[in-house]
């Protein structure tokens, strides 16, 4: 394990066993978790609470002929059975998606994917609810499904969304970025052009805790309390108000401890709505928690991009241009979650870390008879697909030019003096210094030595591969002028109160799913105010207790909410200056700040600590004109730009020539996320993402058969890495602060999930070079690798 010493961002840390601000410290949330005292949705029990269960469609495409719930209703423990026609009567059969489409809450007309919600049972206990599902009789008229996205636009293809007025095909959207004419011209004059179809298959975030809710509707005062597995409690509250007609001030969404999210818990699923309807119908609280198969088969999947990549270069390896046409499989309902203007998310960051003369992409979205979703699994709004495309294409180009892939990347990086860098598709990269990061990863890996070892092994017929990926992300959505979700601007709020004794509470609008917000955000306040993180409580996950904001996904918590917290702390600090001046009977401009204290310039012995100022503010000190008697503040932060973290990853694999089994021997990750608040937490985020990347590259795949049956509907079939499939990660870092973020931090939560898959696949393809393999699609399972060795590479879909 190589962990480079963190920079001394916190000089005070050396004097204490924990930092006053930024630095490694144990997490404030851990004591409850290690005692089994975390509080997740399924741990909630309310008086009189009932249990819900969903009957799901067994086929992918079928007309609903009839539902008979008589027998289920006769079950002694069943209180209600809700069908699509019941919801239709309430105007709740369809709900808006986060992409301006609609999704059926329960089927009224037609089943559109296997696992779709057909009926909802409410019973006294969870076993009885499941029993009653067996008693519902449903007749289906099975229709031919659209499973292959490539055939979705064929003439005569079954029209999936005949519920939409005037719909005659399965087309959702066309979108493009960059300049086509300029790009075509660059390609026409290039020495070398290589093309490759690259498929990023459907995968699933599969958090360890499945999705669930407890709905508690009080019919007396019309108030709904909804405990939910949600990454975005405030956005959910607003959407529930829009869908249900319950006024927003009567809705409280509580997101307690969340057992992993990874984007899976951004959307509003029918189960949440059904729990609410169940509570309204029965007058009692209703809990609904899905099982693992329901999670894998019906909730938000990720990826499913079929990309035609083309890269142009001079013969000496100057990359000139990149273009791609993408076919995006969005499933049966367009329920992806991304800023409205960007139906393909931030895929147009596909120009990567390279200084290109031109770039152009088109993305076409289509409906298929599969579960909806698409933007999930730590993807940073499709940056995952973008990075995979460019980093595979660069490797394929390196092979064509017979250049070392590290050398080719170093030759084409955007130079530090070019930042802020406007890329060819409309982004302005905030800061970057790529070469030192790349060089550090090569040094840590012993890159030249690895290449020598590989050469020797090849001579002996052994298959060793070295894969490189250099990624640049765009995270921290986003500026209100450009970015909204269903009309809600992507800003986040923060409120800070310093109590009279100098202890603080900070209320934030984002929602941890394991990222350690209770620690990190306390550290940000501590750094700015100078009181220990232990004295600062972070409140989150309850819309009645926190300011409005759009939540945690797309690595946006630190870039957006972290900035809000830093600024609200500075606002409090500035207010403290005025109060301190009044207490010291001097002018505010005569005071100077040191961590935790305002003192008189030139006379450091005369000053007031934050605790003293807090007591003064709430006490009897004569306050200056315009200063309220408290030490509180609030802000809403509208980020001026996104942040652009980057990193260099090197993966070393050994492939068994007899079985095609890939062993990840080493993985070196050097990340640059700007200012590092808590290096321990950052390292944890990186480790987790690297494991995702190895999983996607080698194992994870939500596959469908020709009838639209989901073949990845359990952990028996959807394989996730265990401790045996991943190496001991080797991590390092560089620090290039964001120039526009108040503390210079960039998002990091998804960097490794985004950056690592191409490193693994590049390593596998490199190992298979002796067989003439130039590309193979994920997942690189033993069978698929073995086929590639026989000259039979095939796309997974």
């Amino acid at each position, binding site marked *: *394990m190589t962990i480079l010493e963190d920079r001394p961002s916190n000089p005070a840390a050396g004097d204490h066993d924990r930092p006053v601000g930024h630095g490694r410290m*144990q*997490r404030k*949330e*851990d*004591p*409850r*978790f*290690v*005692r*089994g*005292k*975390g*509080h*997740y949705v*399924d*741990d909630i*029990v309310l008086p009189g609470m009932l249990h819900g269960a969903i009957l799901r469609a067994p086929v992918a495409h079928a007309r609903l002929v009839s539902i008979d719930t008589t027998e289920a209703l006769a079950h002694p423990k069943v209180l209600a059975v809700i069908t699509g026609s019941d919801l239709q009567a309430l105007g709740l059969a369809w709900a808006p998606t986060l992409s301006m489409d609609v999704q059926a809450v329960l089927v009224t007309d037609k089943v559109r994917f296997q696992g779709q919600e057909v009926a909802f049972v409410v019973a006294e*206990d*969870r*076993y009885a609810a499941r029993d009653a599902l067996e008693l519902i009789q449903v007749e289906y008229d099975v229709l031919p499904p659209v499973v292959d996205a490539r055939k979705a636009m064929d003439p005569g293809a079954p029209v999936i969304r005949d519920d939409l007025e005037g719909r005659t095909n399965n087309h959702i959207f066309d979108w493009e970025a960059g300049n086509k004419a300029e790009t075509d011209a660059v390609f026409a004059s290039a020495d070398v052009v290589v093309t490759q179809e690259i498929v990023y298959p459907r995968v699933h975030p*599969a*958090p*360890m*805790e*499945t999705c669930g809710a407890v709905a508690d509707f009080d019919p007396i005062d019309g108030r709904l309390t909804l405990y939910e597995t949600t990454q975005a409690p405030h956005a959910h509250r607003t959407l529930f108000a829009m869908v249900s007609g319950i006024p927003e001030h009567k809705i409280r969404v509580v997101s307690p*401890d*969340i*057992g*992993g999210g*990874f984007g899976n818990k951004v959307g509003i699923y029918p189960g949440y709505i059904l729990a609410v309807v169940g509570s309204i119908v029965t007058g009692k609280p209703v809990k609904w928690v899905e*099982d*693992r*198969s329901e999670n894998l088969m019906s909730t938000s999947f990720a990826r499913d991009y079929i990309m035609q990549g083309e890269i142009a270069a001079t013969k000496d390896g100057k990359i000139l241009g990149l273009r791609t046409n993408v076919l995006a499989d969005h499933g049966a309902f367009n329920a992806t979650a991304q800023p409205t203007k960007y139906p393909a998310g931030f895929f147009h960051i596909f120009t990567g870390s390279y200084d290109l003369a031109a770039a152009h992409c088109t993305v076409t979205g289509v409906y298929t008879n599969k579960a909806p979703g698409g933007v999930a699994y730590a993807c940073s709004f499709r940056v995952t697909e973008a990075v995979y495309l460019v980093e595979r294409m660069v490797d394929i180009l390196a092979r064509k030019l017979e250049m070392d892939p590290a050398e080719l990347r170093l030759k084409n990086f955007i130079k530090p003096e070019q930042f802020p860098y406007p890329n060819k598709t409309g982004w302005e990269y905030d800061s970057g210094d790529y070469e030192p990061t790349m060089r550090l990863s090569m040094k840590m890996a012993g890159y030249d030595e690895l290449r020598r070892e590989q050469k020797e092994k090849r001579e002996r017929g052994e298959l060793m591969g070295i894969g490189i990926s250099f990624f640049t992300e765009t995270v921290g959505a986003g500026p209100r002028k450009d970015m909204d979700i269903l009309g809600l601007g992507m800003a986040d709020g923060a409120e800070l109160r310093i109590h009279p004794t100098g202890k603080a509470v900070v209320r934030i609008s984002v929602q941890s*799913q*394991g*990222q*350690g917000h209770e620690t990190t955000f306390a550290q940000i306040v501590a750094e700015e105010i100078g009181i220990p993180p232990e004295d600062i409580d972070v409140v989150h996950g309850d819309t009645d207790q926190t300011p409005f904001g759009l939540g945690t996904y797309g690595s946006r918590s630190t870039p957006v909410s972290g900035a809000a917290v830093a600024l609200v702390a500075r606002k409090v600090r500035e207010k403290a200056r005025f109060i301190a001046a009044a207490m010291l009977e001097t002018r505010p401009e005569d005071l100077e700040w040191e961590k935790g204290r305002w003192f008189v310039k030139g006379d450091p012995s005369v000053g007031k600590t934050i605790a003293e100022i807090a007591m003064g503010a709430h006490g009897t000190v004569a306050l200056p004109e315009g200063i309220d008697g408290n030490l509180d503040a609030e802000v809403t932060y509208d980020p001026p730009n996104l942040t652009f973290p980057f990193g260099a990853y090197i993966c070393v694999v050994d492939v068994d020539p007899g079985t095609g089994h890939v062993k990840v021997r080493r993985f070196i990750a050097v990340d640059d996320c700007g200012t590092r608040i808590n290096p*321990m*937490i950052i*390292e*944890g985020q*990186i*480790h*987790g*993402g*690297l*494991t*995702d990347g190895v999983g996607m590259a080698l194992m994870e795949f939500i596959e469908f058969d020709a009838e639209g049956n989901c073949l990845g509907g*359990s*952990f*028996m079939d959807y394989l*996730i890495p*265990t*401790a*045996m499939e*991943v190496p*001991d*990660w080797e991590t390092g870092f560089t620090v290039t602060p964001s120039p526009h973020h108040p503390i210079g931090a960039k998002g990091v939560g998804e960097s490794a999930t985004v950056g690592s898959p191409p490193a693994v696949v590049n390593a596998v393809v490199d190992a298979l070079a002796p067989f003439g393999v130039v590309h193979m699609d994920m997942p690189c399972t033993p069978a698929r690798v073995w086929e590639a060795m026989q000259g039979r590479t095939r796309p997974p879909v």
Partner: protein
Amino acid sequence: MQISMTINGTDVTREIEPRVLLVHFIRDDLRLTGTHWGCDTTNCGTCVVLMDGQPVKSCTVLAAMADGHAITTVEGLANGATLDPVQQGFMEEHGLQCGFCTPGMMLTARALLDHNPHPEPLEIREAISGQICRCTGYATIVRSIQWAAEHPVGATAETTDEEVHA
């Protein structure tokens, strides 16, 4: 049917449906919610508890099968206010993020250290290989268990004794 077992050192007797899974008995009947549930197929191991000191996946054990046995859940790991070294190790080495797999991981670690006080990293990885963590990437879990191995219960007292004798 009636079943009796020892949970975290306390005898309990309850009337249950014969089909009730041990994980639901622990969570719903006994309200010990530190034991989690994550799949239906014995793959994920978030539901691991110790039965007579051995890790079992409580989603694949009927409560009736635990009749007459001793069960330890995460709530039984600490000795009063004193954490088990495994619990301390997970905090020291960042062996958890969302906390959902953590109880099962810690119980497996406790069982491992009980019969192998000084495991090699590969032995630790094998021991937890029936359990999935989606957050940590496992390296910090391995380090957490190593930390616990290096800080066994009573280590401070033993060290002092040795120093005295030296």
